[in-house]
């Protein structure tokens, strides 16, 4: 920006800024938000206390929905699966995407742009499409993953990833990793490019090895971005739905064997869409919102993100 931009504009020449203009510009947002955010928000509070059969029949049940959810073993399974996916998935996702960024960052030139494009490309494909593809990639006998394992280590051709409750979660985590590692990598890559190169040079001259430079200079410098990626990955994993939905579509059990692919949002979807109880679905929505808020606050506290 030029320096002249910062000088105060002489009073007499200043044209009046129309007072109404900004309000007119945000009016569409406000209108849409009142109708499709504020109203449904209030309505979700109300609905959570009703049991409904579709949109037209409902009875007041007070806290009944919440009592039902908390005592429903299916919800506990969904909560457990979501927690496992969230913790394990994020614990693998963060180092993997940082690793991709580190390998890319050490190279240079045109090749780097190509590899960045390759790693990023899965994340433009929707979860439904990825689920459909991976249901077949993970298939026994002819699936790509099993064929690769067979060629590499000589076993695994018959593994039925999606039909065994022990392997469903790893399968979902692998698919999710393929889908989003390159997306999160972009954030790390941007952060790595902002690390002070002089500091690294100085440490090198002082005899610091690679690991020490990484541990004491790079890592502290990219901390805010790492926390940001941690937060968005966690929030994203609590809302996981379409990927397991599409992955399990072709199998005999849409929620996975022994509900091993049932997540909180899937439970909510079943409540609203299969059972038709909009009240129960709203109550699940509130439980989900509460859990996400709590987890985010704990993460912000523990990582000290509010101090950054």
């Amino acid at each position, binding site marked *: 920006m030029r320096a002249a931009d910062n000088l105060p504009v002489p009073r007499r020449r200043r044209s009046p800024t129309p007072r109404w203009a900004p309000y007119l510009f945000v009016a569409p947002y406000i209108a849409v938000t009142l109708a499709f955010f504020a109203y449904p928000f209030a309505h979700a509070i109300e609905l959570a206390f009703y049991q409904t059969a579709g949109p037209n029949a409902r009875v007041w049940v007070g806290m009944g929905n919440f009592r039902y959810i908390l005592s429903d073993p299916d919800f506990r399974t969904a909560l457990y699966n979501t927690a496992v996916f969230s913790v394990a998935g994020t614990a693998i996702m963060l180092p993997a995407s940082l690793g991709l960024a580190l390998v890319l960052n050490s190279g240079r030139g045109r090749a780097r742009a190509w590899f960045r494009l390759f790693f990023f490309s899965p994340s433009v494909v929707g979860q439904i499409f990825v689920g459909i593809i991976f249901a077949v990639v993970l298939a026994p006998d002819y699936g790509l993953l099993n064929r690769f394992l067979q060629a590499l280590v000589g076993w695994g051709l018959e593994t039925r990833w999606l039909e065994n409750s022990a392997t469903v979660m790893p399968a979902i985590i692998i698919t999710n990793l393929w889908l989003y590692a390159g997306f999160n990598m972009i954030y790390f890559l941007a952060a790595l490019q902002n690390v002070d190169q002089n500091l690294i040079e100085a440490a090198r001259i002082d005899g610091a090895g690679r690991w020490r430079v990484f541990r004491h200079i790079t890592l502290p410098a990219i901390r805010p*971005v790492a926390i940001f990626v941690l937060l968005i990955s966690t929030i994203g994993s609590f809302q996981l739905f379409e990927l397991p939905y599409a992955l399990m579509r072709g199998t005999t059990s849409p929620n996975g064997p022994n509900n091993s692919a049932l997540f909180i949002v899937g439970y909510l979807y079943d409540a609203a869409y299969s059972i038709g109880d909009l009240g129960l679905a709203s109550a699940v929505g509130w439980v989900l919102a509460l859990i996400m808020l709590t987890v985010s606050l704990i993460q912000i506290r523990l990582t000290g993100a509010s101090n950054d």
Partner: protein
Amino acid sequence: MNPVRLTLLAAAAVAAILYAADRRRPRLAGRYARLMVLVFLAAAFLAPFAWITCAAFKDRRALMEYTFLPPLSAWRETINLGNFRKLFEPRTSLQGTIVFWQYLLNSLFLSSAATVIQVFFCSLGGYALAKFRFPGRRTLMLFMAGSLMLPSMLFLAPTYDMLVHIGWIDSYAALLVPSAANAFGIFLFRQAMLSVPNSLIEAARVDGASEFHIYSRIVMPLVQPMTAAFCLIVFMGQWNTFLGPQVFIQSDYKLTVPIILSQYVSQFQEEYGMFLAGTFLSILPIAALFLTLQKEFISELTTSAPRG
């Protein structure tokens, strides 16, 4: 010795030779090792795309037999457009016969419409927040940031209930209007418009330009990279979206591609070739758009992250 093991072994052997030959300054070996890591990672990320492209053109027997493509001599019997022919067969539904084109056109229409609508209303809102100081501005921005924290699933049941009562179920308005002006897009445009020099806007005002003229003729051309990135974000998001059309649309002929494909997966469980061909076709437009706009997209993506 199979090709997978052979490749890995050859790569390791070359690394060992380079390392042995260049012991004092293992720079070449290091560079080679890094390149190999990148190449193998890229192969892992791209393999599912390559695999589904091959699968779309293989007949059923060849899908089981060959991992990627059969040898050239067998192409005549195994590589053909049979899967696509099957995909585009007219199918009967409650509303008459439908050909797969219909779903592609629906998705194309919805995604284009959403893009035009959201770019317009979000950029308007972003301009107001970036370049005007008005009472209520801070409150509005806090509210918008807060609204982004709530899980969208909380709104599924109350929105459905509301759409039933205003008669928007089975109408595209239900998919286009609620997201017409959204906090996420407004924030992105605000961020980009902050860097537009105030002097340009002031000068135009002095010259008597209308506020809308300033927005459309001066500010918008200066944030073209963001507009391009946002077009891609919206188009992709709408193309890939599942929940809205799945829950709010009922007539078969109005469905979008992800919905119908997920139905095909459970309906024609054994017809892998057919729904993989459909998935292949549905990824193509997104891939083309992404490859055209990827530079803007990847660079604008990082503006939403904290500075590392």
